[in-house]
């Protein structure tokens, strides 16, 4: 994939001349840096790369990438991007969206892009709040969340973004967070290598309206005991010296256990390539998965690639029909088309 000429791009080649306008300290900066640092490694050219976004803080992202880009309509980025990807399978198309953009106003477009498996890399910045409109609860905000629009606490049951994506049978589903550039880059790299829709939830801190939303899991002090790093083919263990792990109980439910109590052999091996998404779904619901709970009851939360399976991508299938039509009928001949319903001659 990488050819010498292409790999010569540097981070600078991917950085636009626009002044970045997120609040100081916003998690979005870290994500932008991770993407701009990764791009030269991917062996792709800026001119063949397109970033499409909706509306919201995260959706300013395309302005900062020196690629082709479109800052679209609230919720509609997957639809706009589907048009780009289907029209031009030669392009590398990224979608940048947020929890409100992708899961509320644009929920329909997101699930349909995923089910079609359009060749898109979708980065969902989940900060569990509406930032740009100054702090209303979002579709991922926890029950009871007090915001300007919910002074008595939210009564809306939240979405679990990964469970939703898996429900739509997305072929690549992963989670990362804004504080770990290396983990983000590894995850984005794997997503980019995947043909079809890649969906990545990025836990992102909004330090102005929802500061510390993920501290219970991703802060330096908590990480070791609270983050479960998923690796394909390896037992799902975490904590100091891997003392904890995940097993499947007799009832089919996943549980967090002390490895010493159940024995290392009992620990579940992660299989991201399983076609059946039910295990990935169970992992998605392991803790943050149950986002109905309040922040104070976070449980250890899986990160990394949950699912990565091969499924024909939409853009290729559309192109294949296109090629098939030409090979069957020959390239279109307008004169013939106009006569195709039968004609008669008037002299």
């Amino acid at each position, binding site marked *: 994939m990488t050819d010498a000429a292409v790999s010569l791009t540097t981070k600078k080649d991917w950085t636009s001349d626009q002044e970045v306008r997120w609040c100081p300290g916003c998690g979005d900066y870290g994500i932008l840096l991770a993407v701009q640092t990764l791009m030269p490694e991917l062996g792709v050219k800026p001119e063949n790369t397109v970033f499409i976004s909706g509306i919201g803080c995260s959706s300013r992202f395309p302005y900062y990438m020196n690629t082709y880009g479109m800052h*679209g309509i609230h919720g509609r980025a997957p639809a706009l991007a589907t*048009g780009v990807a289907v029209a031009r399978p030669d392009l590398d198309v990224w979608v940048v969206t947020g929890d409100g953009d992708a899961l509320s106003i644009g929920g329909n477009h997101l699930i349909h892009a995923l089910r079609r498996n359009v060749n898109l890399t979708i980065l969902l910045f989940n900060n569990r709040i509406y930032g740009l409109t100054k702090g209303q609860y979002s579709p991922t905000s926890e029950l009871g969340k007090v915001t300007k629009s919910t002074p008595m606490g939210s009564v809306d049951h939240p979405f679990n973004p990964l469970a939703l994506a898996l429900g739509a049978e997305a072929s690549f589903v992963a989670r990362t967070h804004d504080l770990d550039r290396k983990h983000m880059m590894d995850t984005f790299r794997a997503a980019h290598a995947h043909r079809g829709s890649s969906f990545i939830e990025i836990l992102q801190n909004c330090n102005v309206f929802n500061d510390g939303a993920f501290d219970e899991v991703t802060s330096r002090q908590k990480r070791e005991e609270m983050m479960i790093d998923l690796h394909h083919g390896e037992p799902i263990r975490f904590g100091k010296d891997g003392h904890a792990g995940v097993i499947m109980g007799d009832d089919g439910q996943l549980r967090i256990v002390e490895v010493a109590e159940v024995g290392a052999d009992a620990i579940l091996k992660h299989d991201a390539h399983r076609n059946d998404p039910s295990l990935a779904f169970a992992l998605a619901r392991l803790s943050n998965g149950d986002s109905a709970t309040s922040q104070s009851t976070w449980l250890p939360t899986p990160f990394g690639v949950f699912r990565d399976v091969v499924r024909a991508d939409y853009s290729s299938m559309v192109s294949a029909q296109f090629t098939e039509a030409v090979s069957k009928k020959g390239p279109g001949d*307008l004169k013939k088309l*106009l006569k195709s319903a039968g004609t008669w001659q008037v002299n």
Partner: protein
Amino acid sequence: MPLVLRCVCEEVLSNSPGLIDMTDTVENKSAPETISRVVVRFAGDSGDGMQLTGDRFTSASAMFGNDLSTFPDFPAEIRAPAGTVNGVSSFQVQISEHDITTPGDNSNVLVVMNPAALMADIDRLEQGGLLIVNRDNFVERDLLKVGYETNPLEDGSLANYRVVEVPMTTLTIQATASLGVKPRMAERSKNFFALGMISWLYSRPRESTLDWIKSRFKDEDVRNVNTAAFNAGFHFGETTELFDHPFQVLPAHMPAGEYTNITGNMALAWGLVAAGQLAKLPVFLGSYPITPASDILHELSKNKNFAVRTVQAEDEIAAAGMALGAAFAGHLGVTATSGPGLALKSETLSLAVSLELPMLLIDIQRGGPSTGLPTKTEAADLNIAMFGRHAEAPLPIVAAYSPHHCFDAIIEAARIALKYRTPVIFLSDGYIANGSEPWKLPDVASLPDISVDFQTEFNHVAKDGSNVYWPYLRDPKTLARPWAIPGTPGLMHRVGGLEKQDGTGDIDYTPINHEKMVRLRAAKIAGIASDIPLAEIVGDADADVCILGWGSTWAAIDAAVQRTRRRGHKVAWIHLMHLSPLPPNLGELLRGFKKVIVPELNLGQLCRIVRAEYLVDAQVVSKVQGLPFTSTELENAIGSALGVFNTNQNGVDQ
């Protein structure tokens, strides 16, 4: 026409052999009487195959060389309860030996398959017209279902019509008995019996229909039953005395050339294929199923070998979004819909206005608001097309006036969109979309070149001396911005819905810049007026009264204007294809008339626009019944504007 009264034809139940003896009458009958035009209406239950029957009669007539115009009229329900008035499906066609534009006001012949069809459509038959009835369905149960307390075939209520009762179901079952198929299957072919009968009555050559049955029906039994039913109907006409002789409508004197019979949606789909070829761009259609626009999606999906991509989107919004995404990527982006879908696509249109990218939105208008009358026609989306976006978001609007015109008009819409980098709304309606007419095929080589040049090089030198690309550096003449598509090295740029600086395209919220951009976008659209044909007067330029029309009212206005002028009155007519911007000379022309009347299938949307634009005292003539104007209605409207009243009730050419 012959007067045939209440022939109850028991004798034919014994089938044709016994009737061969009647050769003396047959010979007499076989010389067809030549008539110049006829309007035939087929009406039956939704399940009776009336659209198919009408379509076939039309095709055979088209192949024969008649001029024609059709009007399919069917319910919104796929199968409303059988035998009810709500479930009646009709197809009207006028065939003629001279140039015609309408399917006729009232029909000369009405074929009804059941009492519901009689009740629904008897008012569409001229006084003294020929009414052909499937007598088998006029039994008590069917009559009561629609509320006939007495049998209209017997109570004298049809005395003003020439009624021919034919037991079509029985005859069809008999004619197909030897094929060994179930009576239920045979019964379903009764529409082919009716088609055969009418084909004989109007001397339509049988071959084209027989060939069509052969190719259309894959199942051998179905093919055989339909063929037998069609032939039986044809022979029935020939061998019974119900009709004393057939008629013929000679081929029309149309300009020499090769013709096809075309519906509006077909012409539109082919026009899009042509526009892609003429623009040298792939076509991308994003569409969501909606009546009466879905046929465009169907037809384009069949033509992928023309570099056409179609996506059936998850909703109307996505369909528009995909089209705009494809446009950003360098395709001719198109989305097709009807009124409710246009409402949903409004935000995407606004983004397209802001991005200044070419895109086509096709609106096949139907009765509304909301779901309204999904299968019936109306032209009441001009307001939303013109004004239905937030903020200042003007865009061009092009409207087709007849089925075949959709082909040229969509190419014109594409030309404007591509040249001016703007979304364009294209208006058609249910009447144009489903109606058909003969179309002289255009010389493909003479179609306009609408190709565009993508930007491939830097277009500006920055202060520091470096070469850069400015996505909003406009062409000084058209005010269109350059179009650089992904994949072009060096020209990477970002576009978006936020206000941008003219030239650089960088985000810019400054007050003066916003006003400048609002005015530039408006000036760009207004400037298109100098790039479209001037409005032209048809008829008498020195008349007192001018008809101003747009869209599908064309056919009825055309007939009404011709008749009025044949009566010796002066009338002028201007028909608009470009509704935004309007032709630059329109105001001046309209101000030259004492009266301007605007027939519209709405409550006066164009009328209000021309009053506001030009301060002329235009008056609307409205119709909102889900039906097109009849030419008589407009003839009478013109008559009253002229102060001359006429009593043309039947819509007959005089």
